[in-house]
C-alpha cells in the first residue's frame, strides 16, 4: 500500500484521523530499522565527506613553508592509510566502499598538489586524465555505484577539457557526438552486463546525460553549417532512441518513454524555428509542443494502464 492509496481511500470513506495515522505509520513511514541504517549511512558519509574536503582545503591553502616532499608525502601517507582501512575485513563491505570512494577523491588531491608544485594548473586536462586512469582499478574492484558515477564524471570532464584546451578545432557537434557515444556505450554495457543489479537512479542519470548530449548536438547541428559529424550524430541518435524506446517498453520503464519523446519534441521545435523564425512560427511551435507533450503523456498513461492490467 502506498501513500496515494491511503489518501484516495480516506477521501472516499469515513476513516478517522487515527486510523489514517496508523495506516501511514504501518505502510508508508520509515521504521526503526530503516532509521538506524539511514543514520549510520548519513554519519559515515558526512564523516568521510567532511574529512576529505578538509584535506582538499588544506592543500588548496598552499602552505608556502611546507616543502614539496612533505606535501606530496602527506597526501600519499593519508592515501595509503585510507587504502589500508579498506583492506580491514572487520569493517562492513559498504563502509569499506565508502572509504574507498573517499580515497578516490584523495587521488585527485594528489594530482592537484602535483599540479600545484609543478605549475600545471588546476583545470588542465592531464590532471583529470591522471585521476581517471589511476582510480580505474578501484572502480572496477569495488563496483560501487557512486564511485562509478564519479568515474563517468571524470571521463566526461577529461574529454571536455581536452576539447577545450588541446583539440580546439573540434566542432561543438563533434564533441557532443563523441560524448553521446561514450555515455551511451556506458549505459548499454551497464544494462547488458549489470545483471539488473545496478540501481535505477544511476541508469537514469547516465541516460539523461546521453540524451542531453544528443539533443544539444542535434540542435546545434540544425543551426550550424553542414558537417559530417552531424550526419553520424543523427544516424546514431535515431538508432539509440529507437533502442531506448524498445528497452523502455520491454522493461516497463516510463522514464525512457518520456525522456526520449521530450528530446525529440525539442529537436523538431528547433527544426521548425530553423525553417522560419517569424512570429507565426513561434505560435505554431508553442501549439506543437503542447499537442505533442499531451500526446506523449496520453500514450504513457495508456501504456502504464496496460502494464497494470497485465500484472
Amino acid at each position, binding site marked *: *500500500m502506498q501513500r*496515494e492509496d491511503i489518501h484516495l481511500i480516506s477521501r472516499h470513506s469515513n476513516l478517522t484521523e487515527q*486510523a489514517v495515522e496508523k495506516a501511514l505509520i504501518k505502510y508508508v513511514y*520509515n521504521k526503526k530499522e530503516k532509521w538506524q541504517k539511514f543514520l549510520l549511512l548519513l554519519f*559515515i558519509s558526512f564523516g568521510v565527506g567532511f*574529512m576529505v574536503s578538509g584535506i582538499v*582545503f588544506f592543500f588548496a591553502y598552499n*602552505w608556502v613553508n611546507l616543502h614539496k616532499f612533505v606535501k606530496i608525502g602527506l597526501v600519499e601517507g593519508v592515501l595509503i592509510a585510507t587504502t589500508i582501512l579498506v583492506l580491514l575485513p572487520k569493517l562492513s563491505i559498504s563502509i569499506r566502499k565508502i572509504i574507498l570512494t573517499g580515497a578516490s577523491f584523495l587521488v585527485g588531491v594528489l594530482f592537484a598538489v602535483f599540479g600545484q608544485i609543478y605549475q600545471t594548473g588546476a583545470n588542465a586536462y592531464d590532471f583529470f586524465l591522471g585521476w581517471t586512469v589511476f582510480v580505474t582499478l578501484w572502480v572496477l574492484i569495488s563496483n560501487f555505484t557512486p564511485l562509478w558515477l564519479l568515474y563517468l564524471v571524470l571521463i566526461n570532464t577529461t574529454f571536455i577539457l581536452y576539447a577545450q584546451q588541446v583539440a580546439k578545432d573540434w566542432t561543438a557537434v563533434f564533441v557532443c557526438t563523441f560524448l553521446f557515444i561514450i555515455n551511451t556505450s556506458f549505459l548499454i554495457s551497464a544494462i547488458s552486463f549489470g545483471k539488473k543489479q545496478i540501481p535505477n537512479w544511476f541508469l537514469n542519470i547516465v541516460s539523461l546525460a546521453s540524451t542531453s548530449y544528443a539533443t544539444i548536438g542535434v540542435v546545434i547541428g540544425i543551426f550550424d553549417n553542414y558537417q559530417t559529424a552531424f550526419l553520424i550524430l543523427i544516424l546514431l541518435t535515431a538508432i539509440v532512441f529507437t533502442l531506448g524506446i524498445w528497452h523502455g517498453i520491454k522493461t516497463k520503464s516510463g522514464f525512457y518513454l518520456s525522456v526520449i519523446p521530450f528530446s525529440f519534441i525539442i529537436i523538431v521545435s528547433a527544426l521548425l524555428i530553423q525553417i522560419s523564425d517569424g512570429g507565426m512560427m513561434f505560435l505554431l511551435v508553442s501549439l506543437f509542443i*503542447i499537442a505533442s507533450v499531451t500526446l506523449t503523456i496520453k500514450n504513457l498513461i495508456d501504456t502504464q494502464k496496460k502494464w*497494470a492490467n497485465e500484472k
Partner: protein
Amino acid sequence: MKNKYNIQELLDYLQNSEDKDLNFDEEAIFANYQKDDGNQSLAIKILSVFGGILASFAFLGFLFIAGLYNSDIGLVAFGGIFIAVSIWVNKEYDKIIVETVSVSFFIIGFILLGFGCDQLKMNENFISIIFIIVAVGSLSIVQNYILSFVSILIINGSILTLIISNKGYDLTHLYVSSIALTMNYVFLKEAKIITTNNTLSKLYNPVKTGLIFSFLSGLVILGKKGILPVSLDYIWLSSIIIIYLIVYLISNLFNILSISETRHKIGIYIFTILTLLPTALSPAISGAILLILLSFLVNYKTGLVLGIASFIYFISQYYYDLNFTLLTKSILLFSTGVLFIALYLFTNKKLTANEKV
C-alpha cells in the same frame, strides 16, 4: 497503477484493522483508480511542467516578434482569459491529458497579466498582490496537482518580490521561518490534514512539494552571499527557528528509535545543538538538514533527494563564502568529519551491542 484485485484487498485490510464499522464509497474509489490520474508517475508530472514552460517560452517569442506586447488592456484581458480557460479546462475535463494544455495556459496567462499590468504602469507591489489573489483563487477552485504546485510557487514568488521591491530584505528571515514552520506542520500532520476535508486532501501533495521549493529558494537567498543585502544582524532568527524544529523532530525520533533513558536523550540534545551551533550563521545548512530529516521521516523520496542535493550545495557555498583562511576552513571541515566518524563508530557499537543482548 493498481488493478481491481489489489484495491479490494486493501479495503479489506483497512476494514479488519478498525473496530468500528467503516463506510467506503467503493464505487468512487474504483472509478478513481480507473481514471487517468489514479497514480501519476513523477515522469508525467515533470513532462507536463517542462512541456508547459517550453510552450510558454515559444509563445513569449511569438508575442515579442508579433509586437503584441504593446497593448496594455489587451494583455491584461488576454491574461485573465488564459488563466480562466486553464482553470475551466481543468475543472471540466478532470483528466491528465489536458494537463499540459492547462499548465501552459496558466503560465502564459500569468506572463500576459504581468506584462499588461506593467504596461499600465502599476507598481510591483500591486502586481504581486494581484498575482497572489489570482493564485489563491485558482487553488480554491481546482486542486489539480500541477496547477496547485505552480500556484504555490507563484504565491511564494510574489511574496519574495514584495520583500525585494520594498527593500525589506530582513523580512526574508520571517519568510523562511514561517515556511519552515508551515512545512513542518504539513509533514508531521499528514493524517490530520487529509482527513479534514477533500479539498485539503487533494491539495496536500502539491502544497507539500511547492513548500519545499519555496523553502529552498528562501534558503538560497540566505545562503548565497550577495544575492540580496540581507543583514547579518538578524541571521540567527531563521537559525533559531530551524534548529528548534530539528530538535523537536529529534524528540519525535526518540519514540521511533525507542530511546527512553533521559541520560541518553539529554546527551543527544546537547550533541545536536553543539553540532548545529557552528551553522548558526548559515540557516541554509540547518534548513537542508531539516528537510532531509522530515523527508526521511515520512518517506518522501523527492524531498530527500532535494534535501541532500541542497545540503551539498549549501555546505560548499558556506565554506566558499566564509571569511577564514583556507587553513582554518580545512581544520573546521576536518574536525567535523572526525566528529561524524566518531559518532558513526559510537552508534554502530551501541547497535551491535543491543543486538547481542
